[in-house]
């Protein structure tokens, strides 16, 4: 279903999400983000191997927007495939959640926002 791997580069915390995020698997992503925002301020989400996302996954990202703003935590998604990007786009959420093509772009954006 989904695999979540994490690592750090400089002061960036990277979450690599692989597989499919649906109503069954979204809890794992939710738990991981909930855990890391307690200590990390610069979060990159690597979506290069994310094949599918449903509203359950969108809901996870949406549910942290408010808290991240309040706590000055920056999060940027990168490497989204067309189908995954399209799901964000359908509801206009690509305007609310930062997403770029590459990891380097993501690092630059986190430092700029």
């Amino acid at each position: 279903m989904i695999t979540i791997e994490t690592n750090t580069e400089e002061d960036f915390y990277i979450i690599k999400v692989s597989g499919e995020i649906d109503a069954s698997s979204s809890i794992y992503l939710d738990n991981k983000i909930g855990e890391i925002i307690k200590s990390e301020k610069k979060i990159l989400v690597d979506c290069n191997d994310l094949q599918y996302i449903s509203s359950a996954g969108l809901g996870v990202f949406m549910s942290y927007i408010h808290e991240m703003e309040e706590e000055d935590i920056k999060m940027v998604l990168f490497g989204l495939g067309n189908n995954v990007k399209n799901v964000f786009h359908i509801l206009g959420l690509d305007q609310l959640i930062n997403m770029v093509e590459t990891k380097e772009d993501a690092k630059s954006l986190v430092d700029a926002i």
Partner: protein
Amino acid sequence: MQYNYSAQCSKKNLAEIRKFISETLNNHFNSEIDIHHMVLAVDEVCANLMIHSHNCNPKESIDLSVDIKKHEVIIEIKDTGHGFNIKNYQEPTINEIIVEKKKGGLGLMLVKRVMDKVEFIKSSKSNICRLKKSF
């Protein structure tokens, strides 16, 4: 051509449901985005039914049928749960979802945007969600 599939109400089965829809449609259509939208719509409806109408009880099941016609696809998702009245459904705003940290509420919004017609039909014996996409 009509294709049928039955799944127990466990969220773990959503991946298999998506696979069934995807493989069925792949044999008839070339548009990756249209296939993805129909897979997404079915996934959302099934997840809602499993969670809200069946409490994820694997002893209960939902039945899917995919009817492929020349210019439209009709997908029916049938169950015997509590039923859903779309008239009572008020679409949340994106702001409400952010502020109230709701993790649900987005599914039906997606379904309504990606399908051409969404109907919920309730009878004494069963409930049917009928999704249509025209070409």
